[in-house]
Every structure is written in C-alpha cells, then in structure tokens.
C-alpha cells in the first residue's frame, strides 16, 4: 500500500465492522481499521485476550471480515508463530496460500503476561507484525495496573491512596525490550498523527511482503473509561501525550532511530494530567514530588532518544 499525505487517500472499504461493544470513545478501533487497510493483500489477525478480543467477537457475532484467531491471553505471539510456520511449510509442500499476519495485544498481554511469548517469537524471527495497543492498564478486567501503567496513575490496584498516591513505579520501556531483539522494524504510533500511523503500517506491509519480519508497533490507545476522562477527549489526550514529550513518536528501521514527530516546545505535563481522572490527584500540592519525578523521567527519556537518533545505527 502506498504512502499518503492526506486522509482522503485512505480506501473506503472497512474490514472491521460496526456493532462491536468497545466503549464509546475507545482508542483501539482507529488503529485497527487503519492497520487492516494499510497492510494490503490477504491477511490474518491473531488477537490476545483483551478488550479488543472480547468486544469484537461476542458470540455469535464478529466484527471481523478477515480470518481472526484468539487462543489465550499470554500466547498471541506463539500462536502467530505457529500460523506463520504452517503457512511457510504449506507454501512449499502443498497448495498453501501466502498471507500477512497481524497480531493485536493489549499492554497486559504484551508488557506482562505475554512478554515471554513475544520475546521467543521475536528471537525466532517470524514474519509478522505485532501491535501492542497500550491503554496503560488491565482495562478488560476493570482497570488494574500493568507494567505499562505510568508513574502516579491511579488504577484499582494502584489507587490514589492516602499514603501511596497511585502507581509508584515508572512505565516499563517496552520498545527498548523489543529493540534488544534487533527486530528489522519497530515504531511507536499515535492516533493523533494518523498519516504517520498510516505510513508506518504501509512500510510494515512492504517489509512483510519481503519476509522482513518480525515488526513491532507500540500504539498509544486512549481509554476514556480507564483514564476517567470525557469520551470526546481520546484523541486530545493522545495529542497531548506527544506534545508533552511523554509519548515520543519514533521508529527504529534496521537499527536507525528517527523521531518522526519533533516536539521543539513541549507543553507542560500538567495539561495532560489535568484532563484525566487517573492523574488528577497528582495536581494536589502534596503530590508535587511525583509530578517532578514524572518530568525527570520524560526529560531523560527524550534526551536519550535524541542521542540514539544521532547514531547511525544502534544495532
């Protein structure tokens, strides 16, 4: 699929239909719709247990117009490994068909319980695209903290308590873990930058055509229910995450890091925090130190990325 500059270049045909039960304002569908269009040709979706899985395949209904496989929570990458291996051998031995494999998993299924399965598959080098849609907590079970939950965020298992004000730990850097596997292409994507997202999917599609997987995308997936914000603010939150430098939009193409969205004058993180109920307690004076920690984390993360981007290749 070709790269775009304007959204009217995106084809109309949808492979992901209405009638699913994802919450109003959910950030997952804009990415899924786009992935299914920009990854051209025949394709198969593998889905970890997650919001996307339960809300789009409530028996006897399905929102998918492509083959779709759900096995369990922690094994989407292993399941995809099996499908990819079968596809390869059946192409050689019998009348097999070639198709592209797209895996969707949430942050719980990727950062935490599915990390081993993902690592194994990345190390073995299967030709698939894995997209982790990160809504920064276990939303499907009712907003429990995950390894993807950011510092200070209130969840039902890291509440804004009188002694401990939200999650005490920083978010795990999943992209660093993925890059440690020397994958050919990895990128972060964000719905507030739809042409960037499209073009990365289109690039992924070309790599898949050339059997140059595995490819990994880390998607910022706004969740109005879990983040306790108005349903209309999903894309606004996504935009602020980038503009505060909290969520750098970058890619690692065969080891070369490029920051795709340059943020020269970052907005104060408070603008991001104040629209979300999960962070509102941080704006109280007694939690100032948590915000300061978050600011230091953002700054060091951004500066590190700038330095890495200056290198020819990090592989």
């Amino acid at each position: 699929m070709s790269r775009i500059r304007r959204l009217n270049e995106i084809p109309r045909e949808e492979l992901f239909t209405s009638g699913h039960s994802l919450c109003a304002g959910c950030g997952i569908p804009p990415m899924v719709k786009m992935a299914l269009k920009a990854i051209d040709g025949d394709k198969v979706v593998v889905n970890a247990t997650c919001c996307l899985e339960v809300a789009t395949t409530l028996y006897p209904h399905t929102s998918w117009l492509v083959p779709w496989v759900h096995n369990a929570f922690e094994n989407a990458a292993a399941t995809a490994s099996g499908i990819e291996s079968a596809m390869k051998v059946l192409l050689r031995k019998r009348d097999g068909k070639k198709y592209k494999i797209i895996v969707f998993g949430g942050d719980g299924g990727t950062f935490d319980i599915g990390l081993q399965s993902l690592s194994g598959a990345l190390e073995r080098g299967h030709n698939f695209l894995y997209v982790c849609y990160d809504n920064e907590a276990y939303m499907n079970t009712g907003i429990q903290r995950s390894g993807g939950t950011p510092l200070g965020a209130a969840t039902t298992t890291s509440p804004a308590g009188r002694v401990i004000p939200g999650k005490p730990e920083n978010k795990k850097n999943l992209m660093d873990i993925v890059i440690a596997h020397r994958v050919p292409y990895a990128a972060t994507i964000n719905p507030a930058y739809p042409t960037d997202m499209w073009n990365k999917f289109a690039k992924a599609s070309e790599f898949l055509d050339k059997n140059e997987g595995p490819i990994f995308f880390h998607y910022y997936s706004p969740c109005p229910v879990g983040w306790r914000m108005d349903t209309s603010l999903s894309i606004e939150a996504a935009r602020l995450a980038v503009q505060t430098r909290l969520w750098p939009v970058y890619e690692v193409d065969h080891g070369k890091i490029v920051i795709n969205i340059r943020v020269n004058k970052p907005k104060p993180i408070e603008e991001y925090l104040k629209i979300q109920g999960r962070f509102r307690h941080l704006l109280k004076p007694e939690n100032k130190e948590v915000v300061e920690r978050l600011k230091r984390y953002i700054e060091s993360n951004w500066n590190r990325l700038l330095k890495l981007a200056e290198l020819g290749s990090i592989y």
Partner: protein
Amino acid sequence: MSSWPVKWEELPIGGVVDKPGNSLEVKTGSWRALKPVIDLDKCIKCLLCWVYCPDNAIIRRDDDYVEVDYEYCKGCGICAHECPTKAIDMVEEGGE
C-alpha cells in the same frame, strides 16, 4: 442473531463464527445520550472524523462529505471535538 441457530446440533463446530462482519446486526446507536449533528456548510472534507470514529459511524460519501450513521453511533463526541471547523455539534438525543 436472527439467522443464528440456537440448538447445539446446528452450531458450527469448534465454536467459530462463520458469518464475517455479522456484528452489523448489533445496533449500538441505542447506547447514545448525545448525538452528533453535522453542518455540511462548514465541512472541509478533512475526514478526521471518519478516521477517528471508533464505530465506523461516520459515513464517507462519494464526494468525501460525511454523514452520521445513527444506527451505530455511540455518541462519544470525538468527531465534534476533533473537527477543525467545529462543523459538528453534540445535541441531546431527541433534540435537534
């Protein structure tokens, strides 16, 4: 649901769903409290609402103007919030 069998003998084996995209039978428009109303005079055909709508409830016409599919729109208001020309208003259900 209408065409799906109810007896165990009649279900497809393996618990699969073999009617792709049949969630279109589920009309999620009933979830809505506020509904988007588009003023096409202000629409610049940027298609942001069409790209962002989580429910495919923005219909992209042949001329690239957009309409709302109220059968599925859950009323989240992303379209109205993101519209660069403020061409979309969220109004009470039953109102204009």
